[in-house]
């Protein structure tokens, strides 16, 4: 089995598609890495659910201000032009379609665009945060994910079996092996690692990968 991209490399690939001046919300955890890989000359404006637009990178340790945090409760910094607002205005931005891109993690994504990323079932403590709002608000909803689960089962599926976050909401997937669009209820393969054969990629995918021309090479720097 081919070595897939690291989380950082997946985040790098997703960052290449973010335009200068785009308004972007990054999910808690792994998607937060997208900020590190903005191409030169482009500056996205990052939104966090708890009421900040246009914040900057994490401060040096010991210099955190705990009133200046992101949705993951990690400290961030001010930049010229940062704005604060309340939660109603923050989700007006989300739900009202003002964000260009939301980038989230996933447990499962179905070929019809359904996303499951908040609950693995009735055990434990459920927690949803802002994910259900984000998937129905942003113009583009992108998912960053390993192509398969830790035990090797497909995360890209025919139908989600886990509780849904949103119905028909995902528009693009960046996985450890490929870049895939969702259009008309189908997975459309746009890019794949040159090191994996199409047949093998299909075997790791739980629904048919459709082609729209020859897939490009998924090319990411070593890091």
């Amino acid at each position, binding site marked *: 089995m081919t070595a897939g991209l690291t989380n950082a490399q997946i985040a790098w690939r997703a960052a290449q598609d973010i335009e*200068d*001046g785009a*308004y972007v919300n990054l999910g808690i955890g792994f998607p937060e890495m997208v900020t590190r890989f903005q191409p030169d000359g482009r*500056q996205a*404006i990052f*939104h966090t659910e708890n009421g900040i*637009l*246009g914040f900057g990178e994490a401060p040096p340790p010991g210099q955190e201000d705990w009133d200046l945090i992101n949705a993951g409760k990690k400290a961030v910094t*001010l*930049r*010229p*032009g*940062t*704005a*604060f*607002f309340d939660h*109603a*205005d923050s*989700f*007006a*931005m*989300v*739900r*009202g*379609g*003002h*964000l260009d891109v939301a980038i989230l993690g996933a447990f499962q994504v179905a070929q019809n665009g359904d996303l499951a990323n908040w609950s693995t079932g009735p055990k434990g403590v459920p927690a949803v945060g802002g994910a259900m709002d984000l998937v*129905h*608000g942003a113009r583009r909803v992108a998912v960053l994910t390993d192509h398969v689960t830790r035990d090797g089962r497909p995360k890209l599926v025919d139908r989600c079996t886990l509780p849904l976050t949103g119905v028909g909401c995902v528009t693009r997937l960046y996985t450890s092996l490929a870049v895939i669009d969702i259009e008309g209820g189908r997975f459309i393969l746009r890019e794949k690692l040159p090191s994996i054969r199409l047949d093998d990629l299909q075997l790791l995918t739980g629904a048919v990968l459709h082609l729209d021309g020859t897939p490009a090479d998924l090319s990411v720097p070593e890091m």
Partner: protein
Amino acid sequence: MDKRISTLADAVAGVKDGATVMVGGFGGSGAPIELMHALIDRYLATGRPARLTVINNNAGNGHVGIAAMIEQGMVAKVICSFPRSADPRVFTERYLAGEIELELVPQGTLAERIRAGGAGIPAFYTPTGFGTELAMGKPVAEFDGRSYVQERWLKADVALIKAETGDRLGNLTYRMAARNFAPLMAMAATRTIVQVAQLVEPGGIEPEAVVTPGIFVDAVVHVPDPAQEEDLNRSGARHPKVTA
């Protein structure tokens, strides 16, 4: 990112025939006179944009601003709460002649419908208007033993807004009660065009003092010393100026 546009003419160049245009302000307070007059100038020069639907609390006063837009024949419909003013003749005459359509909306419902448009809320329930003519034909529902009217969101193609301070990211503050509908309209329009009296560098507005964050703004034009509708009307102004 730089949302500045250098001329009023360029700022309003994209407004299309038949567009729905939200205009900030309550009476003269917050009225973006210069943006409206630039739109009139374009219409007089090119015949466009025509057949506009204008959303504002009022329907114009005197012969400037919204009244001038109506007077020059650009406006097919007005959505407002209170089409009366010190000098409402322009609207009144067209309305009574059947030449302009009016959708009358209670003021709080108008504000909430616009906010809903900006916030992705397609419909909500309000007690306002229940049992009155203005709720006729609208769905009604009971919650906790009280009756409410269902109202729909209101969106626009364009919002014309007057702000006090703005930066090139589109962050805005407003002067006193000139704020009124502007922050809501900025959220609810596909393209929000703002005239600012003071243009500052990003960071020139305290992050906690930003009233409209830049995400809701598409274009910023610097208009120092903007005209106040009330002052124009007291001096008998018209737009375009009548030349002897």
